[in-house]
């Protein structure tokens, strides 16, 4: 049944400090906030349109935003109360997005439409997943129902469960594996039942031996999985070398299956599907209760946080409330991050809120937030050896600084996954990823100009 191989890995990447200070912190449920702010865009794809108006009464689980576009995901209310505003508000990624602000009434009444979904076949299953509002909970936020429906002609034979969690500080996936291994295996069983994948591989970084053991044991105990594997499906738990960015989709697929996702394409193109452990356990819970995605486990950590830990928060909870729940700040924070330190987004206000795909909130003090200044490139090539995608960040950086559009395209800036490895290893502290982002924008601008010119 589940068999274990030696730790697998990929080319490139770098070792980062683990800082899993909160791995032993059991998840604490936070109190109801006074108000929640729920943006209409919490996923990759088309933003939703609000279907409630100011003054409406809403209940827990009620749909408050929807979209007709395919690549999108409905947004639900996580509280019961009254809609106090439907207006563009500051968004975690910067800028303003249409959001619904709800003042809570404290009662948490559940909406009448909430009941376990009726699922008979694959089509109704994917429809149910779409209605649940599930998006990639590993942080990318890609609508799951779209992932589950690859274009005709593409067959998915391998389901990969992502338990890598390679970023420093974040332990929310780890806690899910420790606290809810049964839910995860149940979710895997449901996916196998409905989608008929040939095999399932669960990848967990080897700095989490406890999780590897618990998941392996749980799989052995699970009845459905036992019948499934007897019938031909294969499940394995594979320890992965703890190396950043092992949890990145392409690196994960390569380390576990040896398949390389072609540049510019999706995992479905190589017959694989990657899902985060939280996404999988959510499917199991949703099939049982019908409650859409309204809660999220968030790791709160960083040098400025008084009580680092894992907190179960309602989606839409303002960041200020989450930090208050974790004991507030022990020193003046100089930087607030949503996400991990390698790819997270710096926040400039605590009045934004927790989104569906938020898995960490970090607060750095001045010392941790201050980064050394950039000096001259010495052409050491460490960025080249660290890039998991095989790019030459040194040259992309040099050309971006000179705005050589052709060269930026030639060095394939668009293939950059913005993992941050190059900037991390650079001894001259050059802002490599940042300049590659700028390079992508330069390329996009020039493409738009060319299109407009035609």
């Amino acid at each position, binding site marked *: 049944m589940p068999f274990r191989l030696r730790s697998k890995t990929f080319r490139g990447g770098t070792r980062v400090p683990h800082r899993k200070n909160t791995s032993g912190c059991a998840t604490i449920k936070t109190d109801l906030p006074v108000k929640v702010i729920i943006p209409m865009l919490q996923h990759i794809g088309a933003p939703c349109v609000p279907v409630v108006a100011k003054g409406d009464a809403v209940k827990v689980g009620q749909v408050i935003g929807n979209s007709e576009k395919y690549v999108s995901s409905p947004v639900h209310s996580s509280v019961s109360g009254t809609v106090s505003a439907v207006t563009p508000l500051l968004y975690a990624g910067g800028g303003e997005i249409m959001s619904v602000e709800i003042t809570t009434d404290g009662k948490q009444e559940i909406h009448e439409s909430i009941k376990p979904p009726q699922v008979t076949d694959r089509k109704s299953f994917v429809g149910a997943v779409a209605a649940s509002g599930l998006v990639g909970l590993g942080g990318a936020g890609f609508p799951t129902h779209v992932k589950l429906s690859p274009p005709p002609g593409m067959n998915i034979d391998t389901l990969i469960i992502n338990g890598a969690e390679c970023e420093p500080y974040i332990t929310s996936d780890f806690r899910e594996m420790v606290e809810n291994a049964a839910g995860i295996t149940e979710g895997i069983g449901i996916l196998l039942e409905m989608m008929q994948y040939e095999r399932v591989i669960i990848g967990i970084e080897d700095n989490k031996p406890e999780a590897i053991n618990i998941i392996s044991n749980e799989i052995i105990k699970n009845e459905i999985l036992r019948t499934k594997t007897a019938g031909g499906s294969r499940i394995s738990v594979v320890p992965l070398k703890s190396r950043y960015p092992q949890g990145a989709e392409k690196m994960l697929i390569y380390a576990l299956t040896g398949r390389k996702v072609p540049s510019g394409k999706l995992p479905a193109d190589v017959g694989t599907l990657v899902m985060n452990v939280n996404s999988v356990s959510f499917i199991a819970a949703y099939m049982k209760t019908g409650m859409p995605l309204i809660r999220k486990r968030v790791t709160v950590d960083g040098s400025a946080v008084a009580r680092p830990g894992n907190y179960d928060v309602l989606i839409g909870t303002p960041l200020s409330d989450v930090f208050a729940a974790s004991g507030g700040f022990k020193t003046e924070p100089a930087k607030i991050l949503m996400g991990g*330190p390698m790819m997270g987004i710096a926040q400039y206000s605590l009045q934004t809120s927790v989104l569906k795909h938020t898995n960490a909130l970090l607060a750095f003090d001045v010392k941790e937030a201050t980064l050394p200044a950039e000096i001259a490139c010495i052409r050491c090539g460490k960025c080249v050896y660290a890039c998991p995608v095989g790019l030459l960040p040194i040259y992309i950086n040099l050309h971006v600084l000179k705005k050589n559009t052709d060269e930026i395209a030639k060095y394939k800036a668009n293939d950059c996954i913005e993992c941050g490895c190059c*900037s991390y*290893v650079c001894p001259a502290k050059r802002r490599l990823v940042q300049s590659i982002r700028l390079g992508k924008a330069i390329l996009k601008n020039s493409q738009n100009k060319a299109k407009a010119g035609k």
Partner: protein
Amino acid sequence: MEKGYIVSSSPHILGRNSTSKIMRDVLIALIPAAAAGIYYFGSRAAIVIAVTVLSCVLSEYLTEKILKRPNTVSDLSAVVTGVLLALNLPPSIPFWIAAVGGAAAIIIVKQIFGGIGQNFMNPALAARVMLILSWPVAMTRWTDPVTDAVSAATPLAIIKKGAEAAADAAKPEYMDLLLGNVAGCIGETSVIALLAGAVYLLARKVISFEIPLTYIFTVAILTWILGGDVPFSGDFIYHILAGGLFIGAFFMATDYTTSPVTFKGRIIMGVGCGLLTSVIRLYTGYPEGVSFSILIMNITVPLIDRYTVPVVFGGVKKRARAD
């Protein structure tokens, strides 16, 4: 009133490596070779090292001041250039020539081209070659470590075919070559001291094995095949232990700025250096070819980088140009 937070683009943590840490590691790695040089050639060697380091540091400070550039002496790269230059000079070199070499390395090869990271040739080696061409006699007066006589022949000169001057000198044993008990430049003679430094640099991940290994291996193969009286009879062990090959392969050819950034590129550089060194040693008038080969390969590095761009993850190797 919201406090101001630092809002910058990811990543938000950086590794602990730095340019000055790397330079410091190189200096530490050079201590055994410098110590061996002082042991075998006396206190004069120590003064030469001090003179070149002072000359390099002063040149960098003054050039940056005059050109109104930020002062970068604290990144220790000028110190490294000074030490490397000294280790590549004969111990009897007049101090003023050593000082000129230091200034040439920093001012001409490094600062005029843009400072650190912009030099197109290895500064220490380029300066050494400038000195050889300007003061050939002073640059080829070798000291015998045992007798202190300043008219000895280097190990490579002894085996040079057609060189009558050294024909009657005794060929050193492998152990002498390994320890450094031979005539030569201050830091190039003691292979074992250089190896200790090289192991340190490899362990600290300052250099990687591609260039030094392929360089030394190529010289070994070619001198084995072509270096003897009949093919496949060359004394390759003598060749790799003699001359400046070890210091060149591990400390000079691996200089970041003047070596390729890709794995394939580095292999090409190693092989190219090895090929040129063997050809110069075996078929030209010079007994030693390390300095020239590294400098020639330095010049080809931008071309090597251009042609060894790796295939992107999941990309296709460029075959058809029609897209």
